[in-house]
Every structure is written in C-alpha cells, then in structure tokens.
C-alpha cells in the first residue's frame, strides 16, 4: 500500500486514509481545542504523510512514523493558533451521575477532551511532556518558550486538571495505588 502511495495511486491513498484516520484522530485529539481543530490537524498530518510518501518509499514502523507526523502537525497548528484569541470552550462531556462509575461511562475520547479545557499552552506542554515524553528543554525548543516556562505550564496544567478529573472519575478506582 505504501508503495502504491509512493506512486500516488488515489485508491491506495484513500484506503490508507480510511484505515489510519482513527489513529491520527486519536493522536491529534489533545492538540486541538475543538473538533474542528482536531480535524484540521488530521488533515494536515495526512497531507504531510502523502507528501513524504510521494518523495520516498517508506520502510520501517509506520505507526511510529505517522504518530510523529501527527505530533508535528499538532505543534504546527498550535504555533499558528497561539497568536489568535484564546477561547476556553467547555468540552461536551456527559458525566455520569455517579462519579465512581465514570470510567465505565466515559469514552476514551471524552477523557482526552478534558484536556481541551486547559489553556492552549498548558495543554501543549502537558501533552508533549506526558504523551510524547519530551523533556522541558525539548518542549521549550519546539514551542519557542524557555524550559522554566515549560515547567510552569506543566505545573499549572496539573493544578487545573486535578479538580477537573475528580469531577468525573476517581483515579483510585481506575488505577492501582502507587
């Protein structure tokens, strides 16, 4: 399929898009502040993917490579949007009436959508630090901020997330004790 994408065969590109759309969307979810932004990041990621495949045939672990492309597309999206007005939107969550049953009621995407309540910079730092295991200097380099600022954003993200998560689920029921 990748070879066919290298030859820019539309059928192969469509199959790849359909098969890997879910993967791309799941990885792009923390980077967009709403569904439209997530769709835009996914589109950007696929454009980068097909352009890269057109240049060279890819051999290797495709999932890891594509994940990196999605992350880069998310960072690019953040760079474009951060200069605009910051609008904090409430995620469209449907929490259960009983918090302890929350893990059974919340879908995966709904958990990630909690992140979308964070300010963009805090969300980006939290995402890159926790999900992508970037170090603070690396985050600073990618986002154009200092490592200290990155640490501050991470601290702020934790402070904002802790009560937010507690509203919907108890982590002690979800994860074993440390």
């Amino acid at each position, binding site marked *: *399929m*990748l070879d066919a994408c290298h030859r820019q065969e*539309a059928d192969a*590109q*469509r199959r*790849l*898009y*359909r*098969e*890997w*759309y*879910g*993967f791309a*969307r*799941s*990885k792009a979810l*923390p980077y967009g502040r709403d569904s439209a932004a997530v*769709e835009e990041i996914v*589109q950007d990621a*696929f*454009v980068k993917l*097909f*352009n890269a495949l057109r*240049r*060279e*045939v*890819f*051999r*290797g*672990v*495709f*999932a*890891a490579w594509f994940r990196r492309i999605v992350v880069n597309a998310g960072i690019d999206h953040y760079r474009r949007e951060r200069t605009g007005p910051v609008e904090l939107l409430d995620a469209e969550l449907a929490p259960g009436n009983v918090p302890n049953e929350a893990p059974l009621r919340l879908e*995966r995407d709904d*958990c*990630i959508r909690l*992140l979308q309540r964070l300010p963009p910079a805090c969300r980006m730092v939290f995402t890159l630090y*926790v*999900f992508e295991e970037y170090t603070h200097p690396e985050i600073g380099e990618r986002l154009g901020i200092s490592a200290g600022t990155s640490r501050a954003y991470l601290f702020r993200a*934790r402070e904002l*997330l*802790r009560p937010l*998560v507690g509203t919907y689920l108890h*982590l002690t029921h*979800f*994860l074993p004790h*440390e």
Partner: protein
Amino acid sequence: MNRLERFFRTVYDQSPPPGSIDPPADGWEALQRRLEAEQPPARRTVGPWLGALLLLSLLGLLLAHYGTQTAQTARTVQADQVVRSDQPEDRENMGRLAPAAPRPAPAPVLSAAEGATLSVTSTAGGASRVVPARPAAPRPAVATAVPSPIGSRSVGKWPSAPVADPSLPESGADPALIQVRRVAPLTSPFPPSVISGGEGYGLPHAVEVLPPVVTKKEAWHFVPLPREQPVPAVWEISARVLPSGIRRYGHYEGFSTTPNGAGDYRAFTQASGPPLVLYSDRETNTSINDSRPGILMVGVEVARRFPSGFRLSLGTVYSNEGGRFDPSDPAYARGLGSGEYRLVHIQSENWYAHWITLGAQYTINRRRRFRINLGLQLLGQVYERAGRRSFLVGGEPVAVQPVTTSVMENRNFFSRILPVPQVTFEYQLRSRCSLSAGIGGVSGVGATYRIR
C-alpha cells in the same frame, strides 16, 4: 509521573484499531483537494536533467581543453629536431667523422673494416645541411651524463643488428635542450639510458501495512534529512577513472634514396652492409597528433565533509598521457614506395605522471540524494616520465630500424603546482555508497564510500 499523568497516558496510548473509526463524509474529498493544490510542479524531473546537461557541457569543455593542449605540445616537440649544419656537431654518440665529401656526391662513410661503421657525415665546406630551425621547446629535457655505449673507439665491436645513426649536428636549439640519442639497437644488452632532470608538467499497526518480507537488499531507502537535524560529519573515500584517448604525437621525417637538389642527406648505419645514405624529402614531413582508447587518469582521494558543508580532500592521481606504441605497426609505413623511407619520431611514449591533490569544496544540496561539490583543487606533480623513440621505416619491403630511444624523468617534488577548479556530482545509491563524477582535478567517473 504521577497518577493523573499515568491515567491520561494509559488512555492516550489506547489507539483504536485501524479502520475502526470512519472519517467524515467529505474528509477524503477535502484531503484530495489539498493534495492537488499542494502538488509541486514537475520540478524533481528538471534537476537531474539540468545536472546531466551541465555535466556533459563541462565534460565537453574539458575534452576541448585537452585537445588544445595536444596541439600546443606537438608544436613544441618539433624543436628537438632542429638541425643546423653550421653549429658544432654533437659528437657524443657519433662515431668518428668521415672526411668531407664534395657535393652532390654522398659523403664518404667509413667502412667497418676501418673501425668506424657508425660514422657519419660531414659535407663539403662544413655547411651542407641546413634545416630550418623550429621553435624552441618549453619542456626541455636536460641531459645529464649518460654513458653512451658507443664510443668513438668501440663502435667497431657492436653486434650486427640494424643500427642507424642520426649522424648530424643537433645543437641548434636551446642549450638546455639536449636530447641524448643512443645509437644502439633496441635489443641492445645495454641498459636504457635515462635522462634525469627536465621540467614538466537508518508497532504493531505497521505489520498490516508493510510487506511481509523485507529483503536485505530492499532494506535501505533514502530519507531526506530534515532541516531540524544537523548534517553529520563524514569521511569519504573516492575513486575515479577517466577513460579517454591516450595521445600520441611526434612527427615524420621523409627520406628517399633519390638525391635531392639541395644535397641534404643523412647516413644511417645498418646491421650489415654499407651505411644507408638517404636524402631528405621535406615535402613528406608531417606531424603525428592522434589518440587511441585508454585510461587517461586514475585518482583516489580521502575527504572529510563537515556539518557546515565544507569538504577537505587529500588524494593522489596517476595520469597516463602517452602509451606504448609498436614500431612495426603498418600505419607507419603506409604510403611509402620503393626507395622511400620515413624517420618516425614518437615524443609521447609511455608518458605518465603522479600528482598529489589537496582540495577544498562546498557541498550543495547535502541533505538530498543528489549532491554537488564545488571547489578548488591544488595538484602538485611529484613524478613524471616521458619516453621518446625514433625509428626508420622503409617501404617495399617494410623494414624497421631503431634509431634512438631516450627517457626523461622528473623526480622533483612539486615541480608543478596547478590550481584547478573542481565540480563533483554525487548520487547516493546506498547508505554508504554513491556514484560520483568529477570535472577538474581528479576528473572522471567512480564511486564514493562514506564512513561516519
């Protein structure tokens, strides 16, 4: 990582299986429109073609340049054959001179019985052979003491192989230009005479996408280095070969057994029988300037390419500018009739040189597969050798008689230093191997091996 982060991490890493989520209805169409909008023009196909065109153009210029050099050298070589009868005779390799003879009769030649078979001529009044002087040679071979196997008193003991003798005074050119002629057969037991001196010249989801088997040969593919990553410094070993024409130049001197009006003649001793007295036929004098297929240059260089794109190289080059030529080649006797002779002078026999190269280049497009190195090379000559051979060819029946053989060697370190602009093209075939072609300096086509 605290519990909160591990929670999110666990949720985030649970990727949905491929194909489990359907994209939006118009997602593919929108993506396709963007792909078409961002489709670059057919630029990738233009670059290689332009590169090839440039390569061919430069190669053509280079070949034309070599052709010019050949013509110039051919002219200068003729200067070695300046003969003036009013100059003192070079008697080093001559036998005892015969007494002068009146014109137009041939000069008296001493017979073997008289102990002077290699003797030559003098003319009446000491001014009988006047040959127009030619320009002086810029690359004179300075003769050092070369013991001639033929002394004036020992010539009578020589074997009975064909022996000829230039026999005439040859000191009209630059005093530094002294061509030593060994009056001996090629089968002579004597060692060749050598004239030294002379001036010269590298997840589970992917399993469904990847082919089930990836052979070792297909494992490598070129991935352009992103701009965020620095280009690593590498060592490079390059070897290039330049196939080209091996040049041969010299000139023909025409002779005939029929006396000419001017009375110019030369006597050549023969292995047996009386000396061969031949009269100059200047109308048949022509120059030799041609080539045959061969390898003109072989070069090896070691280079260090730095992350900045600069490249320093050190190497050595062997250039072969004249091969060995067979005197019995029928081409030499072509057109000769009975009683006609041709004295063939080959000035470029087995002419080769060694050079040491020092270069500095800058690599363009170094993150790509096709790279171009632009820079300058210094070529320092460390050794040069050039042989000269003259032989007499007779028509009907064709007979070849060696006349002289001489060798010029130049062992002076860096006797010539040439700054040469250099352009090198590289196309990466494997992670370490590239095809390369160079113009200027270490020219030719070859391969480059990279070591990190």
